[in-house]
Every structure is written in C-alpha cells, then in structure tokens.
C-alpha cells in the first residue's frame, strides 16, 4: 500500500473479501470453491484493478470462468474479474511501467520463482527487472530455482512427508547460496520455506518482494534525508 501510495495510487481493501477458494478447488470441492469465488467476485466488482500479493491467488481467479460453466451470469462476472486481476510485480512492471523504485537494499538475496506465478501465470521477467534495479542488492541464483517448494496448499497437510522432503531440498538450495534473504512472490511458498528454515534454526530472512522493496525505498529515503 505504501509503495503504491508513492505513485498516488490508492489501494482499497474491500473488507467483505475472504479467500479465493483455491484450497477447495484444488481438493475437488468445487461447490465450496464457487461459494468463495462469488464472495470475491462481489467484493471487487467496482475495482478497476485487483492486485494480489500471491501469484497463486491471481492464477486461481483465472480458473473462475471454468468453474461457472453452468452459471453464465456468474461466468461473465468471472471473466470481467479475470481481466483486471494482476499479480503484484506484474502490476508494477506491466501496468504501471515501474521498474526502478529507487530502492537500496545492500544484502545478498536469492529469489524463488513460485510455480503458479512464474510457470503457469508467466510472471518471470518482472521480479528480475525490479530486483536488478535495487541498488546494492546482490542477486545470487538459486540452484534449481523453478522446482516446487512442496507447498501445494492442502498437499502439505495431506502428503506432509513428501511435501517435507521437497521443502527440505528447496531449503538446502537456499542455504547453499549463502544468501541473507530469500525473496518471493507467493505467501504460501514463503510461509512453507520460512517455516522449514525456522524449524532448522536457519537465520535466512524470508521476505515478499513488496516487503523488500518497501524496506529498500525507506532506506533510500532516510539516506537522502540524512544527507540533506
């Protein structure tokens, strides 16, 4: 919100919103997923743009039209919503045309591209552009970065040991990079990886790109103020 406010953009938070319904959709409970979807569709009916901090939620909204095949009126509304929903970094770079926020973040950072945002939604160059424009940031490549972290929503609960093996492998790769910060674009994956790193008492800081950028611009602001 604070980042967008810098460009004069007001972010509304319709308090009636709940969850996009992905846990139910992926588990096969489409009736329940449709109930959640209707809440979301109604909540954002009057918004021009809808920005989500998780690529996965944005990708879920792309499933709405297919869920409402039997309800054409809702399908039409779902299509309208689909057209205006954006993942956070995609919104910054593609819609607003912002690649350089003037942020400074002098740390060693590695980036995990989340499957739904990167592979299925196609958000790939945006986070790179944003990170490459952060002053002082050293971006170290994450080995096998595209591999799933093992979250998968209810998968992490239902198949917890398989998911555990996957997140352990992901964490190994993160630790290997010796990065101080792991940055990503999906709260689910970040919660998963952070939870495992914490379980192993690893000091890597896990941040959403928006958090990193905000910390970066705040740092720059203070710096400029001090110099002035």
């Amino acid at each position, binding site marked *: *919100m*604070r980042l967008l*406010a810098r*460009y*004069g*953009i*007001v972010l509304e*938070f319709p*308090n009636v*919103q*709940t*969850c996009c319904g992905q*846990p*139910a959709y*992926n*588990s*096969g*409970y*489409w009736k*329940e997923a449709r*109930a*959640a979807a209707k*809440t979301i569709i109604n909540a954002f009916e*009057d*918004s*021009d*743009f809808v920005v989500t901090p998780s690529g996965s939620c944005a990708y879920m909204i792309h499933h709405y039209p297919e869920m409402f095949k039997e309800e054409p009126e809702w399908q039409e509304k779902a299509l309208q919503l689909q057209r*205006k929903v954006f993942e956070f970094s995609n919104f910054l770079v593609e*819609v*607003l*045309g912002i690649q350089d926020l003037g942020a400074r973040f002098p740390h060693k950072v590695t980036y995990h591209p989340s*499957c*739904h945002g990167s*592979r299925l939604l196609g958000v790939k160059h945006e986070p790179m552009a944003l990170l490459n424009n952060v002053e002082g940031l050293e971006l170290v490549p994450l080995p096998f970065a*595209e591999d*799933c972290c*093992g*979250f*998968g*929503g209810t*998968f*992490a*609960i*239902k*198949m*917890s*040991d*398989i*998911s*555990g*093996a*996957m*997140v352990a*492998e992901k964490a190994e790769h993160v630790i290997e990079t010796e990065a101080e910060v792991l940055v990503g674009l999906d709260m689910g994956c970040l*919660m*998963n990886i952070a*939870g*495992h790193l*914490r*379980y192993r008492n690893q000091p890597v800081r896990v941040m959403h790109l928006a958090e990193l950028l905000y910390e970066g611009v705040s740092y720059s602001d203070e710096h400029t103020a001090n110099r002035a």
Partner: protein
Amino acid sequence: MSTQQTELKGTVKERAQLALNNDFLRQAVKFTTERLRSGKLKAAEEHGNWEEWRERGRQIRLHTIAHLDYYLGEFANNARENGVHVHFADTAQDAISIALQIAKAKEAKSAVKSKSMVTEEIHLNQALQSIDCEAIETDLGEYIIQLANETPSHIIIPAIHKNRYQIAELLSEDAGEQLPPETSVLAGYVRKKLREKFLQADIGVTGCNFAIAESGSIVLFENEGNARMVSTVPKTQITFMGMERIIPSWADLEVMATLLPRSATGQKLTVYMSGITGPKREEDGDGPEEMHIIILDNGRSLQLGDPEFQELLNCIRCGACLNACPVYRHIGGHAYGGTYSGPIGAVLTPALKKNVAEWDDIANASSLCGACYEACPVKIPLHDMLVSLRRRKVEAGHDHPLERVGMKGFGTVMSNVKVYHRALKLGKLGQKVVVRDGGIRAKIGPLKGWNSHRVAPSISKQLFREQYGELRSELDQQAKAADPAVAARMREWLTGRDGGASHE
C-alpha cells in the same frame, strides 16, 4: 518370477514412506532425473524452435486422437495387406489370450522381449511363464528389473531406482561369479548372455512407439540394438501396441522423432530407429516369418469424448514429466502403485481403470506445480487433470469424511465475511495455548504433518484488515498527487480493456 512385488500395496502415503526412508533409492532417482531433465532442457534450447515443434506435436496428436477410428482402420487394413496378423484386444485378458494362443501354436519355449510398457500393463511375462514359455527381457534396465523380480519404476529407465553397486550384486548372482561395479563390464556380461537367448528364442515380443497409418508400419525407438535383434532373429514376432500409438504418416514421424528422444533423454536422435512393415519378404535377409500386432484398448477408449481426459491419449511415453516432477524425484515410481508412474501415471492409472479417481488417493500426491505440463512435448495439461480427478472423486462421494466436513466449513466461512471474521477471532483465541515466539511447533491436529517438517506461523495479533483503516488514513493525510506517467498508463490500460468504459 510370477509375483509382482511392487503392485499396489498399501496407500500412496505408505508406499511413499518406504521410498522416503530409502536413501539409496532417493539418491539414484535424483541423480538420474537431474541428468535427464538437464539434458532435455539443453536439447530443447539447442533445437531453437522447441515451442513451435511442441505445438506441432500437440496438433498431430490432437488430430489423430480425434479421428482415431479412421486412422486405426487405415493402419489395420494396410498392415494386413503387408501380411501382418492384426488383432484387437478390448481388455488385458483378451490380449493375453491372443498371445498365449500364438505361443501355444508355435510350441514356444522362450520369448525374447524388447522394452514395452504395454506388456507390463497386461503382465505378459507371468502369463507366458504359466505355459512354460520363458520370457526374457533384453533391454538392460528391464533385464535388471526382471532379475530383481520387480516392476519398472520409470517409463523409460526401468531400473532408475538402483545404483550400479546394487546392479553389480544382482548380475553377479546371475553370473555365479563376482562382477565389478563397472558399467562396461556389467553391460558386457548381459550382452554376452543375451546373445544365446536371442538365438534360442521362438518368439520376439516388441512394443510400439508409433504406428504409421498410411503404410501399416510400426516404429521402434531404442538405444541398445536389442529391439532390432528381437525383431529380426526369432521366427515369430508379436508386437503389442496401445490403440492410441497411431500417427497418420511418415511425415508426422519426423516431428515425433524430434520430440521424443530430446524429451526422454536429451538425445538429438535415438540410436536405433526401426520401421517395420510386415514379416520377412522373399528378398529380405532376415526378419520374422510370421508377424502379429495386438492392439490394446484396456480402458483407453473410455477417454475418447471426455473433454477433461481425451488429451491423455496424446502421450508419447517419453518420461519427461517424471524427470521434471519434484514428487517423483523423492518417492520414485513404485510409490505410484501402478504400471505407469510419475505425473502421467497418477492420471493414466485411475483413468484406465475406471475413469474416476477411485484409485486410492494417488491424485493427491501432487503439489500441482505444473512442471509436468511444462516438460510435456505434446503439452498435456496433467496438473489440470489431477484436479479433475480429485473433483470427480469428491462428486462420486469417495472423498474422506473428515475432509468433506472441513471443506463444507471452508465454503461456509468463505462465503460470508462475518463468519470469516468470527473464525479468525476464534483462531486467535485458540492459538494462545500453542504459540511461542509467533510460531507454532506443537504437532497437533491438522498441523501434525506440517509441523513435522516446519514451524507453523500464527495468526497475526493485528491482521492486515484490522490495520487497513489506520494505514489508509495515514496515507490519505500525506496524499500524493498521482504520478502522471503512471496515471496515463493506467488509463491506457483501462481503455484498451473496456473500450473506454471505466468506473471513473
């Protein structure tokens, strides 16, 4: 060798647990899948127009499957004209009966086989043994698996779960002497041993990578030369093919020959590609005197006309989805419990069996990351199919009662923000007992599995939605004028999208 040790024992979770506790297996599978998927990515990049060819491959498969009746008819007619005995088998049992009839008529004592997943699907080896016809696998990996009395754990690398030390043990036992764990020595031993078997065999059994409708030919892709031996030395050849193996023409084969080896192993070309059009003719130096093709349905036709699953028949069995799959990498193929493993197996096995996901809960063993779809040379949306399977299972009432209660609750909570807020409040209150330093480590209730590998985050003391009002007024006070460039882009975007009808 009549038992199938790895055929569907226990639940997916239990089978996965066996693999997760087996470090040899995990290391071996990880090592080889990483080599194969890196090779595939490199081959695709070097090709230069991979995405375009992938789309061509998909179109060829979509077209062929949409007109499968026509092309199957054309293929069968042409093959018969070439002197091949063509048989159609509705079920695995039918295919076995046909094969056994042929073997009995030939009084066959032994059959050499090249690699074929369809014969694994119908359990041909056991059937042949039952009439005292020895079945010998001649693909190196398959030979190893046969010695170990196991089933393949990968579509193209059947012994992927074994390392060379384990393989040396198995082959040493077979040889009656200690063989060193050196690949060339081990392969040399098998090569020598199989020579005799080829010469003695009454029947050669092959699979079929592609069947060419326009000429009634079958095409085999292989790297060891054994399929060529199988299809030239014995007097009788039996080829098994799934009914969906068809492509219309030799021109289409060019696309498949580009996609298949690159996707499977990263090879630009397979080492041996054999096109076989009928039995030995008078002028031929070698080849079988009699050739049979058994075309198997066994649940495949159930997918025809099913909008969610018809594309499953487009699969060219390259194994790229297995190599790309992070779940497969950790649990190997046997955990899937069927002949076909990995993402394709997780969808194909239940689809072939009943067309609904009553096949334990294999469809749940996926994080839906989409790596399979990305790797697939004919773009089969396996991740979507897994969701369809889950949905069908729920709709058919085969879901877990506890999950059903949970999901009904989810629906109720998410459709009304007031209930949602109450649930969050309740959660905040409830978690007080277990939260330490903002995290939950206790392995209780639904968090048991999660917390065996992680620390769970707690619900924040102050949620974003509770901070929003304050934050909003803070930002409104220092309100900045809209950045003109940014505002212009937003307007432009809206105009492009709604034809000018924005909400402003």
